[in-house]
């Protein structure tokens, strides 16, 4: 009686049936569930004792206080500092994910010469040589996105040692010149295209005062500010001055059209009121409103760093250009730069954390640390009525090989001091002056500088997260705010029948998380979108969503058209463009 195949089958069948009654299959089942819970590829969040550290945001001139929640040494989330004089405990969306910037793509990680790695000494030598070779009519220029910092003083000191050098800055670097805005007491704002509720000054401070502000927004685009303003006055780009004049007339009791009259009425009913924007007309309005030097208006403050608007530098004059690019903010337009450079072999050095923007065209790229990667500073918070200063201690480990722009300039100037020394000197100076008080983030307390024992203590306090604010100046009416250049009016030609204006643009560099959320919620139009009124679009033979080519005197670019009846007819809105005449046609 042998072991037949039948027996084998019986045996296997029996054992299979028996197996069901053992715990084996069930535990296996359970394991699969566990496995599905920590699926391969799900990262483990960092562990470590949770600590709170403080710093100051340097992504824009607002200088908001930042409280960082850290697991171990790793910041895992940022939030505002309650009671902060400038930010009032708020952070903007970009600020909330500032700690992601270090991990963005297209970071510059080592010094590059035309795309090839180079020793920083070589770069220094090349720049020095180029400066030495400067001709009589050629200038050395340094673009400083945020004048008024200790770094800016380093730049100025360096430039002052050169025959003809110019310290450039963006046009709107210091919106109100040596003045701050006394928002806390302002009752009405007549804004000409200023994004009052969309990043102007310190968002927290503006919004904290929103409830007692009447806002009249004079703007062609129905921007987010316009949508939340009490009154939206759509005017043709370039028509702002005319409207300002009209309001001025109305204020002085003269006749004006209905919209201007209503605006004037609002301003008179809610004093003190101010007008925001460029041009003589706006300056005149402020004079009529008596908003300069008065509570609730523009108040003078001590610090002001005169810097040349790069647009006003004569074309074809810059031989050597050093461009500092911050972690955030709008990048400098290369079209503009090109116009300013000398035709023959100019030298452009980009002191930037990013490989895109102007860096693509620069001869040398000196990688700069991004926000939170190295000790940095924030100058007077935008629009503050008193000079201010705060440190931005690093929260992230610096990947090395990075040179803060100021550091590079110091080495150009053969100055042995480091950027940290410069900041220390600034703090020492503040202590020496003894004016004003510091607000420490951790305990939300204000302390008179005079009461702080030593510069070292002040330094320590500032490193721990604090902002210094100067005492207010006695109000003086004889001052005039430096008027911004008026928005030049656009004259249309048969070739360029439409007006190109800027739509609110997404930041050039942002956390992938933030851009994802904006994209998916449709809260921001894509960067390459051209938004037009359906009538205008059809008039130009376009369809909603089709690809199109926009051409303007300054060049052509392709876009995706979006029809939106909210847009002013005859206008094309494209993110991050300067107003000009333009035409659009189907691609």
């Amino acid at each position, binding site marked *: 009686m042998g072991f037949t195949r039948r027996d084998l089958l019986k045996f296997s069948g029996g054992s299979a049936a028996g197996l069901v009654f053992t715990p084996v299959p069930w535990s296996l089942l359970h394991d699969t*569930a566990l496995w599905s819970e920590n699926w391969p590829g799900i990262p483990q969040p960092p562990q470590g004792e949770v600590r709170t550290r403080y710093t100051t945001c340097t992504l824009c001139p607002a200088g908001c206080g930042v409280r960082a929640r850290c697991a171990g040494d790793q910041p895992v989330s940022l939030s505002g500092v309650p009671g902060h004089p400038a930010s009032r405990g708020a952070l903007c969306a970009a600020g909330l994910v500032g700690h992601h910037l270090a991990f963005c793509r297209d970071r510059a990680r080592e010094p590059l010469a035309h795309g090839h790695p180079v020793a920083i000494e070589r770069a220094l030598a090349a720049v020095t040589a180029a400066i030495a070779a400067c001709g009589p009519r050629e200038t050395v220029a340094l673009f400083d996105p945020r004048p008024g910092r200790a770094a800016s003083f380093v730049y100025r000191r360096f430039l002052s040692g050169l025959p003809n050098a110019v310290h450039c800055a963006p046009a709107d670097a210091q919106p109100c010149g040596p003045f701050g805005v006394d928002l806390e007491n302002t009752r009405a704002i007549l804004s000409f295209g200023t994004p009052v509720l969309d990043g102007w000054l310190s968002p927290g401070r503006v919004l904290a005062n929103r409830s007692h502000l009447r806002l009249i927004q004079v703007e062609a685009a129905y921007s987010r500010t316009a949508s939340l303003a009490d009154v939206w006055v759509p005017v043709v780009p370039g028509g702002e001055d005319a409207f300002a004049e009209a309001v001025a007339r109305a204020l002085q009791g003269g006749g004006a059209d209905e919209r201007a009259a209503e605006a004037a009425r609002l301003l008179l009913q809610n004093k003190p009121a101010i007008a925001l924007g460029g041009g003589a007309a706006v300056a005149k309005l402020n004079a009529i409103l008596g908003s300069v030097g008065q509570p609730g208006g523009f108040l003078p403050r001590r610090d002001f760093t005169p810097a040349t608007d790069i647009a006003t530098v004569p074309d074809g004059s810059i031989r050597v250009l050093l461009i500092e690019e911050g972690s955030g903010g709008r990048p400098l337009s290369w079209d503009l730069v090109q116009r300013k450079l000398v035709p023959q072999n100019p030298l452009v050095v980009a002191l930037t954390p990013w490989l895109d923007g102007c860096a693509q065209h620069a001869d040398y790229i000196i990688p700069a640390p991004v926000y939170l990667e190295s000790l940095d500073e924030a100058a007077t918070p935008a629009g503050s009525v008193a000079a201010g200063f705060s440190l931005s201690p690093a929260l992230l480990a610096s990947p090395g090989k990075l040179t803060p722009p100021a550091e590079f300039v110091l080495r150009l100037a053969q100055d042995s001091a480091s950027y940290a020394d410069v900041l220390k000197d600034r703090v020492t100076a503040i202590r020496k002056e003894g004016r004003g008080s510091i607000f420490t983030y951790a305990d939300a307390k204000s302390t008179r500088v005079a009461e702080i024992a030593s510069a070292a203590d002040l330094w320590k306090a500032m490193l721990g997260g604090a902002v210094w604010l100067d005492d207010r100046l006695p109000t003086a009416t004889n001052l005039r705010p430096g008027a911004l250049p008026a928005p030049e009016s656009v004259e249309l030609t048969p070739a360029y029948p439409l007006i190109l204006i800027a739509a609110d643009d997404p930041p050039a560099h942002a956390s992938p998380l933030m851009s994802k959320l904006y994209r998916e919620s449709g809260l921001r139009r894509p960067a390459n979108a051209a938004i037009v009124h359906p009538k205008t679009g059809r008039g130009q033979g376009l369809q909603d969503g089709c690809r199109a080519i926009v051409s303007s005197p300054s060049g052509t670019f392709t876009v995706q058209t979006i029809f939106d009846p909210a847009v002013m007819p005859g206008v094309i809105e494209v993110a991050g463009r300067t107003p000009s005449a333009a035409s659009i046609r189907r691609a």
Partner: protein
Amino acid sequence: MPDADSQLMPRGVRRSTPRQFLLWILPWAALLAFGLYGAGLCLVKGLNQTHMDNRFAFGLWIFLDLTVIALGAGAFFTGFLLYILKKTELKAVINSAVVIGFICYSGAVAALLVDVGQPLRFWFTFWHPNVHSMLTEVTFCITCYLTVLLIEYVPIVLKNRKLRQIPSFLVFEFELHKLMPVLAGVGTFLSFFHQGSLGGLYGVLRGRPFAFREGFAIWPSTFFLFILSAAAAGPAFILLTTWLVSKISGKRLVRPEVLPLLGRISGILLLPYILLKSIDTLIWINSTSPARGFAAHQFYAWKPFGAWILFAEIVGFGLLPALILLRRRMRESTAWLVFAASLVCLGIALNRFVLTIQTLALPTLPFDPFLSYLPSWQETATFLAVVAYGVLVYSFSFRYLTLFPQEKDLSC
């Protein structure tokens, strides 16, 4: 020397040559393989392979499941009529009905396993059931009923000409067959519940005023409508398949009186269904929907889902076939019979489509747009795989098993 192939076929019936059969099988096998590839992609890479999204969380697959389960209802209902109500004429199609039911349910379950995001957790529903969820009811009943169908399928397989030569198989089959009424009873019970719960699935969606319905006790009206419609569609589908198979194989499979009988059963069930459906719709339009802040007409304001779809469902695919099937003279003509049966099946499909797709396409938030959805090729492939699987299983069963007992007597 008789070849193994014909050895497996039931005696006394003619089947196509192995060559012809292969030619018939191959394209379907290819389709199945392609579909399995698509499904595999979805399982390995995740459901991003589909075109479903957070707003169209259900898509082609759920529509498929609902439809095939409705069409598969023929199995339980024929079994019910045959074993419980002793309608012996239906012996002629019961085997075929069981096979179809098995195909439909197993296909649906397979599709569901691809459809869920975490197939490994399928058993969680049995472990922590939320008994208040219609889906739990569906899951439990469908798994049970699939087992029932499997048990009903076994005897048919064991009666294969080769297998029956093993005495133990034949004896087991013999004994099992004696207990068929029990299985039929259980099957009927289960089917009533899950067919209903499938309807309840949408009826309970208080967040979707288009689908939400009032009802009795814990069951919304769709619960009962689904049972009735499925019972009506089942026989119609068997009628259709039987006719189709006999056309394709060129054989007479059942006595001439069987198909009209199926048609009559379908018609008898369809008429009350249409009646109740119309009443339910009226109640919904005039009371249920307005009470939740939605004027019913606005559901049909979005192209292409105009009010025509409602009329088509009730009149074109409901009343019309019901009337045809209930007229003896028309039933006598195969053409009318088949036409009406196909209308019934299409009507059921349309009904399930509306409940799945239109429900999800309609916006609920006031500031929200109407959404459209088009399945990805992976989804479509998986869909086709289920179809191909069905055709293959049926073809093999038809070739090697006795699906239509009357065939051998009719064939000479």
